[in-house]
């Protein structure tokens, strides 16, 4: 099995990254230098004004390292790809199936199954661990809605039904999400998703962690030769990584949302780490951003049994495995796409 390697997150402004032999050299604005061998990395994420030499970009492309540029606040700007990326035959098959409503609905069904089952598992885990501190009735009603979705997914669904169910599952889940915040509930109150810009601290955290998840899922898809823009559940929209959004569905609740909840509930991020702008937009400060990045990196190292492969792997590798499995189901090596079920 592939090894989980590190992702290098560069947040210091004005840093210059270059290539020296098989190493990445990081030079900070004050002249301080650090170096990392390329073979211990599988991605570099640059936030804001971080500069990279063309030779480093080329080397990353050649070695299959995902290199992404984000704004300081984590909005994706651009990524670097090498001269030959992936397998054109696989991509053509991906396009054919994305054009075919029946084939698309099959994959969409798996993706939604992953989303529903994992969201339900997160709510159940909360009921089990903190049943006395939350409105258990409300959470149980949400679990019932998700149960109903799960039941309908036991038989094939149309693409429209799958999309409808995605909305229904997300609605039920986010309606009770705020219940799972157990620390400093006033500062971290949550009534539903909002973004661009996020209007509260919880949404600010969620959006940022989703960006990190999107980066990792996108690069895993690119690494196996799939086109991250062409999705099955998510319709094509220029500039939107449809397939990355598809595969993210199964990971959002247990990888991203639970990370946000535990950062808040363990007091690792605090209300004073957020800045509210005149417009009501909420942003996190540099220290909070670093805390989130470190926690994300650590979360990816947690190991769990992959439910389909029956092999213990770090969660960060699960993105690659799912990308591999979706590629194999597109190629017809597998008779469907098995989502990652979190237990």
């Amino acid at each position, binding site marked *: *099995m*592939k090894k989980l390697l590190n992702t290098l997150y560069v947040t210091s402004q004005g840093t210059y990254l270059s290539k020296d032999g098989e190493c990445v050299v990081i030079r900070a604005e004050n002249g301080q230098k650090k170096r990392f061998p390329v073979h211990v990395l599988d991605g570099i994420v640059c936030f804001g004004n971080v500069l990279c030499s063309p030779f480093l970009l080329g080397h990353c492309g050649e070695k299959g390292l995902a290199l992404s540029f984000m704004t300081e606040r984590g909005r994706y700007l651009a990524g670097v790809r090498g001269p*030959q990326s*992936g*397998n054109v*035959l*696989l991509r053509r098959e991906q396009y054919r199936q994305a054009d075919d409503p029946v084939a698309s609905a099959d994959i969409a*069904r*798996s993706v939604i*199954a*992953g989303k*529903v*089952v994992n969201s339900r598992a997160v709510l159940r885990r909360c009921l089990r661990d903190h049943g006395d501190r939350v409105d258990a009735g409300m959470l149980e009603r949400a679990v019932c809605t998700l*149960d109903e979705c*799960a*039941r309908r*997914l*036991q038989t094939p669904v149309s693409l429209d039904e799958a999309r409808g169910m995605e909305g229904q599952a997300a609605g039920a889940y986010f309606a009770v999400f705020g219940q799972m915040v157990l620390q400093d509930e006033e500062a971290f109150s949550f009534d539903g998703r909002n973004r661009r810009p996020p209007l509260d601290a919880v949404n600010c955290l969620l959006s940022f962690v989703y960006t990190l998840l999107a980066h990792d899922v996108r690069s895993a898809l690119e690494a*196996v*030769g799939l086109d991250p823009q062409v999705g099955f559940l998510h319709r094509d929209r220029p500039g939107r990584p449809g397939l990355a959004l598809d595969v993210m569905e199964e990971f959002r609740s247990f990888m991203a949302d639970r990370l946000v909840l535990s950062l808040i509930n363990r007091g690792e991020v605090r209300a004073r780490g957020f800045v509210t702008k005149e417009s009501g937009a909420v942003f996190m400060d540099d220290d909070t951003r670093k805390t989130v990045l470190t926690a994300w990196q650590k979360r990816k190292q947690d190991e769990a049994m992959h*439910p*389909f*492969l029956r092999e213990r792997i770090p969660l960060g590798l699960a993105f*690659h495995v799912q990308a*591999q*499995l979706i590629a*194999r*189901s597109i*190629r017809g*090596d*597998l*008779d*469907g*796409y*098995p*989502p990652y*079920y979190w237990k």
Partner: protein
Amino acid sequence: MDRTLPLSALQHYLYCPRQCALIHVEKVWAENRFTAEGRLLHLRADSGSAGRRGGVAEDRAVPIRSDRLGLYGVADVVEMRPGPDGREIPYPVEYKRGSPKVEDWDRAQLCAQAMCLEEMLGAVIRDGAIFYGKPRRRERVVFDTPLRSLVEQSCRDMHTMVETAQTPPATHGKRCRGCSLKGACMPKTGQDVERYLLKGLEP
């Protein structure tokens, strides 16, 4: 053959046709310790230049190809040994980091090199050698009819596979242990996705 494949593809094909398809059809490549060591070993071998060794002229990193087999590549070392009629006969030598294998993978690759040289030079080459890094010893290889047929048949099958872009299904075996593409190949995954899907959806 309208498409030529690297000589290494033949060796991959003999080792495992699926591995060959993953590399040349699916364009998957993953390096592990073994492939990295092999790459560095060749980097060193390829950096040498032509010279004489014990009275025998030798050339290193010799580009070779065969239109008939549809192969191209680089021979590590080609020695020019004097033949009985005074003409020099090429003698290919291949460097391998590991130890000699029971199977014909390495011998077939060397034989293919010889067949390339024969086509390019109009010569007849009867033998060559493989230098193994583990015992640090040369093994002589005779290019007999069965070995030549193996090369020809494998080349034909391999080209058909790549031309039609058919990746054979995975079969799990002992070979998988040292394979750098195991992660991409997933030789052990079962087929029944629907059952797995339903099991997860249970209340």
